[in-house]
């Protein structure tokens, strides 16, 4: 007999593709592949970096085709949107049925459609009801429900009744997380704020521009504490005061792992920076001449002899664990400018341009605080998703559905006919083990 061709309208074809597992697997693998590219190609670098690293052709390609911001490009967002649609379609398609199945009690009619696993004849002398109850309780746990259908008595046990909801909870959770991400993208704001001790902030930086705060933020005190001198930092903390129109509204201490929220904005102690406090004094030796120079940021200074110039570019309070250091740009005659570090406590470190020799006499500096500033209404959606995932995974993988029924009938010649029915489509291993035990139990005392 020839198969009748299925009617396929474009809409049903689209729906079919959208809900197909093949599509899901395809998208998951595409996403994995794009993410691999994103970890191999450094992200968010200035365009020059790509040309330098990969050459004109490939570097330009990476930059022009957005491979440098791959997680925000259509390469990634496209499949993510399709995956979200795919998940949504699958949820719409299957969830009502799953709910219906969970809400429908396991009844006699459904039980009789289960495959038969064993058939026994018990002699008239036994008490079949209590025996069936005992066997089912011992092997499956819990009390069997009893129903009567005509002259048949049924004993029903259902395990993992809520299992069908599991996968849908997981997928709804993923949709919540994606929605949270989207909400954060559109209605959230994220920036940073460098702040010096004593300074009052009115704005913070978002991308390249300034975003006004609805209040003022004063950094009363900033402390960086080290385990040992020149070692790794132990803690950095900012003592903050929130002000509105000059009036104090609240005080808080912001630490790493301990953010502070005020008026809908959350401040995270994300890092800290170093700034010079006054001129850096460097001793410059050239042959047997030596002279002490005072350098301020970005001011060119002529070196002794007048043939070269130096400029202070940056100071660091603890460069690579070697203590305070000043970064100096140097240009000798018509040569290329060079850049190097001068360490205060480690004069032997750092390559310096010959024939000059720089040693630091004083590098006065202080630390300033750097905050990540954020408001993200999507976080609660994301967290709701995180919480929903676990009951979903638990139901889906650890509460396998199984249905058992024992059908008891009076045999025409006295005694009882007992049939054992049951199925557990996704958990055959455990089912088979339980079945073996049950069959052995039911067989005991059977005349053979």
């Amino acid at each position: 007999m020839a198969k009748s061709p299925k009617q396929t309208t474009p809409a049903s074809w689209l729906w079919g593709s959208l809900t197909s597992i093949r599509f899901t697997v395809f998208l998951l693998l595409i996403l994995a592949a794009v993410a691999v590219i994103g970890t191999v190609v450094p992200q968010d670098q200035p365009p020059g970096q790509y040309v330098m690293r990969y050459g004109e052709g490939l570097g330009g390609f990476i930059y022009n085709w957005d491979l440098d911001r791959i997680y925000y490009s259509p390469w990634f967002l496209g499949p993510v949107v399709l995956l979200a649609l795919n998940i949504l379609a699958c949820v719409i398609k299957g969830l009502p049925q799953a709910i219906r199945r969970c809400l429908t009690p396991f009844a006699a009619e459904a039980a009789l459609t289960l495959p038969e696993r064993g058939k026994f004849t018990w002699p008239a002398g036994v008490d079949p009801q209590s025996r069936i109850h005992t066997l089912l309780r011992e092997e499956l746990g819990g009390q069997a429900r009893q129903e009567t259908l005509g002259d048949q008595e049924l004993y029903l046990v259902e395990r993992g009744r809520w299992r069908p909801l599991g996968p849908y909870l997981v997928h709804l959770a993923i949709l919540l997380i994606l929605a949270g991400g989207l909400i954060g993208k559109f209605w959230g704001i994220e920036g940073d704020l460098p702040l010096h001790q004593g300074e009052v902030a009115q704005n913070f930086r978002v991308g390249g521009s300034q975003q006004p705060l609805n209040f003022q933020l004063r950094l009363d005190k900033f402390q960086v504490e080290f385990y040992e001198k020149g070692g790794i930092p132990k803690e950095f903390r900012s003592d903050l005061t929130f002000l509105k129109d000059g009036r104090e509204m609240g005080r808080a201490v912001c630490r790493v792992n301990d953010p502070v929220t005020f008026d809908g904005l959350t401040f995270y102690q994300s890092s800290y920076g170093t700034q010079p406090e006054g001129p850096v004094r460097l001793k410059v030796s050239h042959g047997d001449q030596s002279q002490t120079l005072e350098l301020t940021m970005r001011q060119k200074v002529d070196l002794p002899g007048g043939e070269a110039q130096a400029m202070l570019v940056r100071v660091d309070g603890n460069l690579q664990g070697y203590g305070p250091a000043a970064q100096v740009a140097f240009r000798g005659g018509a040569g290329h400018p060079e850049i190097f570090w001068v360490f205060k406590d480690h004069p032997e470190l750092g390559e310096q341009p010959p024939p000059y020799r720089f040693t630091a006499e004083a590098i006065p500096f202080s630390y300033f605080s750097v905050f990540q500033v954020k408001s993200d209404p999507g976080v609660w959606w994301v967290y709701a998703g995180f919480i929903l995932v676990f009951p979903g995974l638990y139901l889906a993988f650890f509460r396998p559905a199984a249905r058992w029924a024992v059908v008891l009938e009076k045999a025409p010649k006295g005694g009882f006919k007992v049939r054992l029915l049951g199925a557990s489509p996704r958990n055959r291993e455990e089912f088979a083990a339980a079945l073996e035990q049950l069959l052995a139990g039911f067989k005991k005392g059977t005349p053979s």
Partner: protein
Amino acid sequence: MISQILGAVMLVYLGVAILFLAAEMWSSSRLQNTARWLLWVGLGAHTAALLGRWAGSYQLAALSTPPAAFTDILSLVIIQAPLSNFYESLVFFAWTLPALGLFAFRRYFKGYLGALVSTLACLLLAYASFGGVDSRIKPLMPALKSNWLLIHVVTAFLGYAAFALAFGTAILYLVQERRPRPSLPPPAQLDRLIYRATVLGFLLLTLGILTGAVWAETAWGRYWSWDPKETWSLITWLIYATMLHARLLKGWQGRRIAWLAVLGFLAVMFTYFGVSFLLSGLHSYLT
């Protein structure tokens, strides 16, 4: 002292692997039991070493910030769990393999599978001891001082261990399929074991990723930053998600599932080693 214990544990795991192999070759249940017993001894010593290191880093931290109240002591204990650098992660990863094998997969943890996983644990400890990995106890940087550290690292590495078991089983499956041996478990059983270990690993990896996200949100104000380790753990998660879908909805079994378990474990290994050495990011303090 602790490094000597770990050296001994490494030798014990090697011995266990040899005994498991020998037990398989001579199909001796007595050797099988001896190997299992020795593995318990090794795991006990390994646990003692971990606890010793935990006490050591607690004492070091307590010297610089003496805790006053009971809650301070408790939170310092949690924060100072020995899971904060590459060396400690190697030692803990080596611990999770026999621990998970003995507790969650007791029935199957013997013979070739036992030998394979013990060898892996032995190699991890050998790398920690002789691979030039810095084993000093170092004070914690501020970002790591969080109650999330313990649960994040423990779930992630237990997940890795479950995937390692799935990988070992998959290798056995592929060998068994090519050259069947009656002494090995039948392929159908191996197939189910791959699935069960993967499900456990998937649950734990999900926990690891999500606790990491919550932690990142409190530390940096971002639950996801596309840091290479985050991204690779997501890639790993996607591979295993694919595998579970293929199995549960498409009925994939056997060889294809085994190959996916191998692929997934390669991704796990890259997430752990590759990212630490080849790519830099927020997790690079591990090295």
